[in-house]
């Protein structure tokens, strides 16, 4: 995020003149709208906003935003973003990537951006499939996924993008899904975080991996399957009748029943976005087989800022220059010299 003057815009101001070319019904449309809804709320300036992406259906995103946009090459968006931000730290950078782009070929760049803590928002559209190349399984596809490249089911164990992000040193990790009404909230929080903000967005690829997230990302049963994490609030779900509690002897999480709203009595844990240990455990819920019956942790799971990379670089550059005379002629003539007389 960037602290600049607020600019008044509307959703329409963020629509580019390019025809949107995703499949009808694709979850990307909803995310596009959510972003276009979010930016006016945070007072973003189109001229100061840059969307950077790799390659994939998701990575077409920048074309549809009336802002600056760079649709780069597969997996490398984090590296481009790093150069852009270091060259002009005033720019507000949104990185758009997919589970293939950001976690398969681009995993390393994602990791290094996170550990360096470059100030930007990373939106990883996780549809658990390679959309653009017509449906091969991806590093986040569940085991057994049938696809053109895995006709008998994929055998690879999937990666959890949020676990990977935390392991890489991310200081902000959040989750949302394409059609969620709360997505703008999550994005606003990501933007408010100074540093690299990693947001996994579950996204429905209706052509190649249809309704893959229906077990939690549909209104029906949402109460039981979604755990919206909020800093300082108890980790409740199922309309407040259930909660997540720390199972101390086992150093793990358990579900507890909450009677009459008395969550304290039920030892429901209070969410603390600065607790890394808790974040590790929350992220595993519903995804790790052991926690399959838990709800999916959504919202801001971890948020504990540290100095950003570009800030440190700029400070060091400034310090290096302090009191120095950047005279090129002098520089060229540095060291031991001698004069040949004419």
């Amino acid at each position, binding site marked *: 995020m960037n602290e600049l003057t607020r600019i008044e815009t509307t959703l329409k101001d963020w629509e*580019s003149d*390019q025809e949107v070319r995703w499949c009808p019904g694709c979850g990307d449309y909803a995310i596009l709208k959510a972003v276009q809804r979010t930016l006016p709320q945070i007072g973003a300036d*189109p*001229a*100061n906003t*840059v969307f*950077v992406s790799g*390659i994939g259906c998701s990575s077409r995103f*920048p*074309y549809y*935003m*009336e*802002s*600056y*946009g*760079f*649709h*780069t*090459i597969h997996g*490398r968006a*984090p*590296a*481009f*973003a*790093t*150069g*852009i*931000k*270091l*060259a*002009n730290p*005033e*720019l507000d950078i949104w990185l758009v990537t997919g589970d293939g782009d950001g976690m398969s070929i681009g995993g*390393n*760049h994602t*990791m*290094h951006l996170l550990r360096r803590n470059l100030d930007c928002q990373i939106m990883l559209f996780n549809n658990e499939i390679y959309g653009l190349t017509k449906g091969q399984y991806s590093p986040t596809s569940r085991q057994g996924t049938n696809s053109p490249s895995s006709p008998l089911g994929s055998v690879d164990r999937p990666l959890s993008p949020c676990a990977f992000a935390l392991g890489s040193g991310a200081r902000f990790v959040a989750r949302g899904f394409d059609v969620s009404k709360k997505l703008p909230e999550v994005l606003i929080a990501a933007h408010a975080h100074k540093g690299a903000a990693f947001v996994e967005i579950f996204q429905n690829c209706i052509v190649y991996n249809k309704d893959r997230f229906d077990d939690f990302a549909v209104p029906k049963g949402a109460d039981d399957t979604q755990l919206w994490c909020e800093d300082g609030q108890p980790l409740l779900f199922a309309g407040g009748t259930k909660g997540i509690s720390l199972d101390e002897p086992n150093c793990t999480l358990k579900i507890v029943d909450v009677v009459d709203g008395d969550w304290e009595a039920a030892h429901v844990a209070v969410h603390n976005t600065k607790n890394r240990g808790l974040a590790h455990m929350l992220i595993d819920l519903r995804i790790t087989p052991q926690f399959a019956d838990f709800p999916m942790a959504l919202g801001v799971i971890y948020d504990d800022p540290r100095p950003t990379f570009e800030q440190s*670089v700029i400070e*060091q*550059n400034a310090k*290096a*220059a302090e009191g*120095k*005379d*950047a005279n*090129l*002629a002098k*520089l*060229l*003539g*540095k*060291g*031991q*010299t*001698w*004069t*040949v*007389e*004419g």
Partner: protein
Amino acid sequence: MATLAAEKQAGQTAPEAVVVRFAGDSGDGMQLTGGQFTLSTALAGNDLATFPDFPAEIRAPQGTLFGVSAFQINFGSTAIETAGDAPDVLVAMNTAALKVNLPALKPGGLVIADSGEFTKRNLDKAKYDTNPLEDGSLAKWDLLAFDISALTLEAVKPFGLGNKEALRCKNMWTLGLALWMFDRPREPLHQWLKQKFAKAPELAEANIAALNAGHAYGETAEISGPLKQVHIDPAETEPGLYRTVTGAEAISLGLVAGAQLANLPMFFGGYPITPASAILHHLARLKEFGVTTFQAEDEIAAICAAIGASYAGQLGITSSSGPGIALKGEAMGLAIMTELPLVIVNSQRGGPSTGLPTKTEQSDLYQAVYGRNGDAPMPVIATRSPADAFECAIEACRIAVQYMTPVMLLTDGYIANAAEPWKVPDPASYAPFPVKFLTEKNDGENLLPYKRDAKGARPWIKPGTPGLMHRIGGIEKQEGTGNLDYSPENHQAMTDARKAKVDGIANDIPAQDVCLGEEGGKLALVGWGSTFGPIHQAVRRARRKGLDVSHIHVRHIWPLPANLGDLLKSYDKVIVPEMNTGQFKTVLRDQFLVDARPLNKTSGQPFQIAEIEAAIEQALAE
């Protein structure tokens, strides 16, 4: 070109040039000795060229053959362009150094050896059965063996150093001797040592004492034996301020100058690799010149970050060697497609694959000119020497920003590490080429990010500029608007436009000159890059013999200078000496259909003048 050995045989006293090689264990400080001797040579007004040759290992175990480090310098009273074929003098600080370097020594040359190092253990390590200093096997050279170790220990005794520390002064003892041999003042060295050891004055004193002792030894030893003081007259040089410079330094400085001439901050994205890292290291110390250096996680990230910085309005630069450049190919394509400026420096080394990281080669020309997917034309410039590197770096920056294109700048391990005297340029003497970013719509109501100027370049638009929001990417783009466009006519037009833009640079670079000899004639030697020295000297020698041969050295590898084809056709024969299996000759034959014949060397070592001379003679005799 007279040399010490030759002159001595002829009974003369003042040779035109001398080649000295300092060789020792990696831990013996030979590169330092060589560097300081170079400086004193430069201060003495000689022209010079150097060739540092160090082992692939960081710190090889002491006394091993593969741990030998050498530094060769050729200096003289006339123009010097190579580090010399064979040394006149070999200073061997240990047994292994003698073993490894002896074969190169000129017959009749002088060996100075530290006999104190020729112990049984060291002889074994160097795989000598008997002591070469004693078994007569060095008969065809002059030998001067004495216990430098002991003499050094003696000289530094007053300073109470430990044995190890005391022995570290050996290189200064040797340097002192060398200074005496070539009649050089010691004062600059005294100064330098005092500065270097400002925090440990006793070390400074000890080293100075060793230096003086070596010098004194020369004076005393002269009385008898092969050691003679030699005075090399200053070379005739253009008047002005001089310093020594290595290629890596000169490129770094040239890039800084280029960015300043373009009026841009510079962003350098790099990832360590031998021998390219030196540029990263140099630039990392120049932050006050608007330089940001970014050590990326790999070469791909390094180039992508540099492209990102260019996109954001800085001058993006990246640098690597062959294997790393290979990884950058895909991203170069994006820079070509999005038409963003970028300078890519390739410090070539022996290949293929990991190859010979510390050895030199010119074998990445194919990769530079042709090594990308799709029709992806990109300008390529090659530096010929450390001093030339400065100019080439500026030229690369100019082309990059004026044509909105990535540019490949080729150098190699030899140029990167070698030092030579450099007339300090005056930045004011270079025509600035300040960049004008687009700040307003360029087509009435519309923004056309791919509208081309007279050079065929599109406008450079910084994100952050109000009202100019637009999107770019690696997919084929519509002429003018830059929007996605897959239509056949458009792809044809854009492919043509990209090609025309790069081809057009041929009209914006100097016509190719003949750097020695005439336009037209029996034979032209066409070189590029670091082979300049040996080709030039070989042609000079051949011409002195009355042979009709000229030297053409090409800086602009792609596009080639507009007149080059006609120029080449004005010779009966064309030979292209290259440190590869014949890569530039492919470009010449393709472009001009001239029968350019290869003269190849792929041993990881620079050409010897004699090798090229022989090829000239053979070609003219045919």
